C-alpha cells in the first residue's frame, strides 16, 4: 500500500496524473492520429517513385544483406517546378480563393451585422437559415447550381422570358460559376465567426460613436469594423484555406480553363495514378497554406495577450 502511494505521489508530482494533462492529451492524440500520421504517410509517398504495383509506389527504406537503404526521391518536387502547369495552378487557386474570400466578406459582413442586430427571436431564425442549407449534401447543392446556371437553366429562362436577353448567357463552366459556387458554399463559414464576434461587441460603443456625432457609415468603419477584426480574420481563414484546395466546385461548375490545384491533384492521383507526384502537390499546397495559418495564429495570440 505504501509503495502504491509512493508511486502515485511520484506520478502526481511529475504531473502524469494531473487532470489538466489528461484534458490536453485527448485533442493531441486526435491530432496525432488523424493529422500527423496521414501527413507522415503523404510526406513519405511524396519521396517515393511510381511503380506498377499495389500500392503504386516504391518503398523508401529497404533492408538487404544487413544494409538499410533509404531511397529519397526528390524528383517529384523538381518535376513540380519544371512544369509551369503546377505553378499556374497554385497561383490560380490562390487567386480564385482570394477573390472568393473577399466576396464572402463583402456579402457576409452585412448579413452577420444584420443578424447580430436583429431582435433575439428573429436572430435564431436567421441563424438557422444560414446553417440550414448545409444539412443537405454538399454535392447535391453544387449540382443544383448546374440547373440554375446552365444555358437553359432557371436564370437564363427567366431573363429570356422577360425579354432582357435574346440568347442564353453562358455562365456554367466558367470562372464565374466557380465563384458563385465557392461563395455560396463557404458563406456560412464567413458569417458564423463574424456573428460570434459581433455579438461580443459592446453596443454602447456604437451608441457612443453615434452620440459623438458619427454617422452610421462612419461608425461602421471607425468602430465596428476595427473591433471585429478577429472575426474578419477568422472568417477569411475559414473560407480561404478550404477554397484553395477545393475540388468539387471547379470540377462541376468550372470550365476547362479553370485551373485549380485540387483538380490537378485529382488528375495526378486518379487519372495518371502517379501517387508520388500527387503527394508532392499536396505537400506544397500545405506549405503554402501554413503561412497564412501561422500569421493568423500570431495575430490571435497577440490579441489574447492584450485582453
Amino acid at each position, binding site marked *: 500500500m505504501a509503495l502504491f502511494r509512493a508511486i502515485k505521489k511520484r506520478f502526481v508530482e511529475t504531473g502524469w496524473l494531473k487532470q489538466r494533462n489528461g484534458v490536453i492529451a485527448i485533442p493531441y492524440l486526435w491530432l496525432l492520429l488523424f493529422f500527423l500520421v496521414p501527413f507522415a504517410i503523404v510526406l513519405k509517398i511524396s519521396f517515393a517513385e511510381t511503380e506498377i504495383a499495389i500500392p503504386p509506389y516504391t518503398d523508401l527504406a529497404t533492408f538487404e544483406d544487413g544494409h538499410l537503404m533509404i531511397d529519397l526521391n526528390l524528383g517529384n518536387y523538381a518535376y513540380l517546378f519544371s512544369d509551369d502547369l503546377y505553378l499556374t495552378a497554385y497561383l490560380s487557386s490562390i487567386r480564385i480563393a482570394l477573390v472568393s474570400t473577399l466576396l464572402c466578406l463583402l456579402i457576409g459582413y452585412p448579413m452577420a451585422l444584420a443578424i447580430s442586430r436583429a431582435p433575439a427571436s428573429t436572430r435564431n431564425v436567421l441563424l438557422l437559415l444560414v446553417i440550414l442549407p448545409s444539412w443537405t449534401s454538399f454535392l447535391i447543392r453544387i449540382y443544383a447550381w448546374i440547373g440554375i446556371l446552365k444555358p437553359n437553366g432557371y436564370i437564363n429562362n427567366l431573363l429570356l422570358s422577360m425579354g432582357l436577353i435574346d440568347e442564353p448567357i453562358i455562365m456554367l463552366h466558367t470562372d464565374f460559376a466557380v465563384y458563385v459556387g465557392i461563395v455560396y458554399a463557404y458563406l456560412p463559414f464567413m458569417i458564423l465567426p463574424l456573428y460570434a464576434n459581433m455579438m461580443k461587441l459592446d453596443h454602447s460603443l456604437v451608441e457612443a460613436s453615434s452620440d459623438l*456625432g458619427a454617422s452610421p457609415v462612419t461608425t461602421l468603419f471607425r468602430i465596428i469594423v476595427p473591433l471585429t477584426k478577429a472575426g474578419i480574420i477568422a472568417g477569411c481563414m475559414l473560407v480561404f484555406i478550404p477554397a484553395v484546395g477545393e475540388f468539387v466546385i471547379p470540377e462541376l461548375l468550372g470550365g476547362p480553363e479553370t485551373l485549380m490545384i485540387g483538380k490537378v491533384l485529382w488528375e495526378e492521383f486518379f487519372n495518371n495514378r502517379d501517387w508520388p507526384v500527387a503527394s508532392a502537390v499536396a505537400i506544397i499546397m500545405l506549405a503554402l497554406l501554413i503561412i497564412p495559418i501561422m500569421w493568423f495564429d500570431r495575430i490571435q495570440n497577440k490579441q489574447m495577450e492584450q485582453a
Partner: protein
Amino acid sequence: MTLKHLSQGPSPVLLELKNLSKSFDGHQAVRSVNLQFYEGEIFALLGGSGCGKSTLLRMLSGFETLTEGKILLNGEDIAAIPPYRRPFNMMFQSYALFPHMTVEQNIAYGLKQDKLKKEDIAKRVDDMLKLVHMESFRLRKPSQLSGGQRQRVALARSLAKKPKLLLLDEPMGALDKKLRGEMQLELVDIIKQVGVTCVMVTHDQEEAMTMADRIAVMHAGEILQIGSPHDIYEYPNCRYVADFIGEVNLFGGHIAEEEPSYVVINVPNLVAPIYIDHGISGPGGERPVSVAVRPEKVRLSDQQPDEQYNWGKGIIDDLAYLGQHSIYHILLPDGQFIQVTQTNDKRRERPFELEQEIFVSWSPDSCVVLEE
C-alpha cells in the same frame, strides 16, 4: 422654483419635455413626463431600477424614439433628430471608451466628426486633458487605465464638443465605493467650471443629493416629485418619496382637527396626538393619512414629556453604536418599530440601555403629512 446656486433669479429654460411617453410592447416605461431643465443646472433623475429614468435619458440622447410628446430645445422640437445630430453628449455608465483608440483619439473622435481643423482639435484635446488632469495619460489605451481614470477620459470625451446638454448615465455606477465620494465632488466641480447643463440618472439617493441642484424622483414611469435635495428630503409629497430618500418613520392616523395654520392627527400608536404647525392641502374632513418623521428629528428621553402633543412610549429593542451617531430601534405598543438616530455629541457611557422604557418626541415642525 428657484435654484439655490443662482442667486440672481431663475435661469432661462434650456430644454422642456412635454407629455413625454414611451411604451415597449404595451408596457408604459415613461408616462407623460413634463419637465423643464434650466441652463447651467445639474438635474438628477432618481429612482429604483425599472422606474423609467434610463429610458427617459435615452430619449433625450436620441437612442429611444418617443411614443408621444415633445422635446423642446430652446423652444424647438428635436424629437425627430437622430442622436448623431443632437448637440447633446452622454457619459455612459460603462464609459464606452473605444478600446482600440488611445485616450487622445477617444477625446478627438467627436471633434473629428465636426470636420474641425487639425490644430483646433489638438488644442481642444489638450484643454480637455488638462480639465480632467489626464495630460500624462494621453497615449494610453483604455485598458491601461484605472476605473477613475477611465471616468475622467469619458467625461473629457463627452465635454469636448461643448454640448448644450451633458447626459450622465449612472456616473458612479462602475466605481468602487471609496472612489465614488471623491469623484462625485470632482465631477460637479468640472461641470460647474464648464458651465454645461447636465441631466444625470442615478438610483443612489446620496449621489443625487451630493451632485444635483434639483432632483426628480421617478417611480413606475412617472415623476412623483421635483425639487431641491432639501425640499425632497424635508418635504416629501408622498409615501414613496419619503421612503425612497433616506430613512423615515411613518405613522398611520386620522385627521382630528384641520385648520389653515395647523393640523392635529390622532395616531393609535402614540400616547399624544401629532400636532403639525402648518396647514396641509387636500380634501377636508376626517380621512386616513400618514405622518412621516425622520429618525434624526426624534428625541429620546427617559422622562415623560409634559407636552400635549407629539410624543409616544416604547421599549428600546435594538441599538447600534456607530461612533459619530447611534441608531435605536424602538418598539411601540402595537408592534411597530421606529428608528431614531442620535448624535453622540457627549463623551459618556451609553445614555440608554436595551429593553429600557423610553419616550419619543419631536417638535411640531419636523413632521410631514403624506396622503395615502
